[in-house]
């Protein structure tokens, strides 16, 4: 074993002398440490197995998901039988959380117009549940009777929503509610159920206009049973149906819906999927009244509609996409938000300042 080198004992702690007694041990050999780490991981996996199992269930269909579910299934079952999983669900309950990570509540933020004054109780309404809609509030929003807008989406929706919410709130006559969550879409309601979330948000916000941008996470298999693979005619039918249902739900209380298409992606394979989702969403929008479909590739893309990290506006180049080639930069979000506001003015006849 010519490669063997002796351990450099200069760097090893000296053995405790017999007279001083045993010294507290803060060091350990690697074998015992490996056992400790493995045991820790095993105990933690056992306690947290139900959450990990849920996480595996909502992950993209594939080998990784299958292996994870096969391994976690028995562990999670044992955890439930022994009531150990209650430890985690108790902790989540104490924090007021749905342990499965689905459902809403955490994704909704509402920005009131800055001119809002405190109510006599000293606590301004966070969720203005307006029971009657004044007849002219949409045509002439004011600070005391603001236009109510709900912004919905995934991470791209967050990009647009942040800019749009800020611009709308700054007008002083709009209540802008942003309800968005990264990595979500319509394909996997087991991970995040947008129809349920929208149903929950509608009475809280009572929007007159809803703006939606999502779909980039949707090109993946719909898990079963029966499972539907992405790229099949059955998947297209199922997805279009979900999009139509969602749009009908959004407009069910009288709100107008602006659906913003996904921008082109830098990666060609990803772009093909995203454009396919756009096609399905566009065809769904054509079937539902009160839905306006905005093409983002006419605003934050190359002149031909392809991917471009830069656009020229008023003679200046603007960086509209982030370095990952997927998301929208803050400048790009502002450009797209301006386009949405323009649509609200021109097509919905709302005099947004």
């Amino acid at each position, binding site marked *: *074993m010519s*490669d063997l080198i*002796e*351990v*450099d004992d200069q*760097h*090893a*702690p000296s053995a405790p002398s017999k007279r001083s007694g045993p010294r*507290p041990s*803060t*060091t*350990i*050999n*690697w*074998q015992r*440490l*490996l*056992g400790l780490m*493995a*045991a*820790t*991981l095993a105990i*933690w996996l056992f*306690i*947290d197995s139900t*959450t990990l199992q849920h996480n595996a269930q*909502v*992950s993209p269909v594939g080998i990784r998901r299958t292996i994870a579910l096969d391994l976690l299934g028995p562990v999670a079952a044992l955890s439930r039988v022994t009531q150990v999983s209650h*430890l*985690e669900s108790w902790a989540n309950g104490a924090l007021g959380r749905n342990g499965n*990570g689905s459902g809403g509540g*955490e994704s909704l933020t509402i*920005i009131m*117009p*800055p001119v809002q004054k*405190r109510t006599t109780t000293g606590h*301004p309404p966070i969720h203005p549940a307006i029971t009657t809609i004044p007849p002219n509030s949409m045509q002439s929003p004011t600070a005391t009777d603001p236009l109510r807008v709900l912004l919905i989406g995934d991470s791209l929706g967050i990009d647009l929503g942040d800019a749009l*919410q*800020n611009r709308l709130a*700054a007008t002083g006559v709009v209540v*802008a509610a942003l309800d968005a*969550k*990264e*990595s979500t879409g319509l394909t996997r309601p087991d991970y*995040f159920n947008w129809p349920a979330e929208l149903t929950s948000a509608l009475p809280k916000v009572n929007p007159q206009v809803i703006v939606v941008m999502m779909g980039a*996470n949707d*090109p*993946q298999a719909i898990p079963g049973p029966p499972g539907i693979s992405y790229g099949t005619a059955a998947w297209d039918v199922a997805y279009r149906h979900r999009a139509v249902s969602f749009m009908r739900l959004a407009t069910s209380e009288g709100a107008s819906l602006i659906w913003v298409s996904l921008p082109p992606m830098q990666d060609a394979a990803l772009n093909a999927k995203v454009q396919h989702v756009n096609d399905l969403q566009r065809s769904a929008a054509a079937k539902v009244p009160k839905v306006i479909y905005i093409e983002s590739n006419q605003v934050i893309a190359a002149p031909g509609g392809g991917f471009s*990290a*830069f656009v020229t506006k008023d003679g*200046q*180049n*603007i960086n509209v996409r*982030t*370095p*990952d080639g*997927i*998301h929208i930069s*803050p*400048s790009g979000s502002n450009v797209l938000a301006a386009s949405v506001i323009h649509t609200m003015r021109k097509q919905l006849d709302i005099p947004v300042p």
Partner: protein
Amino acid sequence: MLFPTIDFALFFLAAFALCWVLSPFPTPWKLAVLGLSYFFYGWWEPKFVLLLVAETAIAHVGARMITRARDDRTARLWKIAAVGSLLGILGYFKYAGFFAVSIDNVARSVGLGNLIPLIQPTLPLAISFFTFMAISYVIDVARDELDPASPIDLAVYLAFFPHLIAGPIVRGSELLPQIRRRRDERHIDYSRAIHLIVRGLFKKVVISSFLATAIVDPVFVSPSGHSALDVLFGIWGYAIQIYCDFSGYTDIAIGLALLLGIKFPVNFDAPYSAVSLQDFWRRWHITLSRWLRDYLYIPLGGNRGSESEIARNILLTMILGGLWHGAAWTFLAWGTLHGVGQVVGHRRREARVAAGKPPQTTGLTAHIGHVVWTFQFVCLAWVFFRATSFTNAFEVLGRLFSGWGSPTTLVTPLVILAIVAVLAVQQLPGVLGARLAAWWSNQHLALQGSLLALVLLGVTTLGPTGVAPFIYYRF
């Protein structure tokens, strides 16, 4: 592959076992560590492993040619070539788009548009970190402070996965001897390592995430929609968020390296207990600070020369330090603010010393004043660091004045507690955590494992809900 994930936990368990089994055999150990590190980096984007390999090759060839050079001039030329190449790679991936669009906009304003092709390459993860490490290696060899390493030693030094993604920026003199030397598998300082990892997880997963969603992001997204008090706490909250996020990740990195028998330098030392900006930079991202000091500030002249030369050196160093953090004018503004602050602080200290006084006023009240003032200035600069544009930054700052009277909705007891607790801990000697870790390490192994599992459960429960299992994630 991010640290606080189950994927990484399983990866590390396997990596730990493999590394220690091979520890008696230096070459297989190095090859295993290198393979694991490339696998770790390639988990995000496999093709950029080639970038890491390329920079390793440039640093290796550069260092070898420097040492073989027949005269100083040739050695200097090789140094310039190697460092220039490394900076060129960094410049292309990180700054090409920024400078191209800025220059083109200026050109357009004078009627000379389309001078430069507008490109935006995908930014490789951690490129700033490993490029700076490669540059420090080449320069240390050129200064005869370090012997050239073998290719595999150098590759391991640059790619070692605990520090690869977010530092610390380790020197060759610190890590190469540890790579060459056999690690002591009988006495792994696991108490300190576990303490660091748990502390890092709590800071990053719990505190940082909480403050980001509870107050910082809402305030910076829409300053005009929040009160002055919300904005003020949002700014303070960001100071705590970025500290917990960055130092938490570094703690985990140092802890993981310790578990593998490797010691990293400390990277954060209670920065918000600093009594001046100069002191702050001795406590914040220490490995970057010393890199800037040794490879930029001192070669520029450092503290030698006239007052204006010293001021120039400080400003230039801090501005470039700002640019290192990101390709945007707001990062330059952040660096400039720190530079200006340090110049002013330097001149005040010099004036006081020249007048026979101590560099700073002394006493408890003065000390508190220095800490508070330094923290507020640092927070002011953080506004530009966090803001998405100058407009956003001035919106946030302006709201501090115009937002009084609006309802405060984000400043909750928990937000206040998180901010105050982290600040308070920084003012205290850091012995409690170490004592707790020592107590834990004296328990039976089964109890140690159980307690640690409960702590991990606590961290994951208190952290943000849900998981991002889908195709895309925000960088």
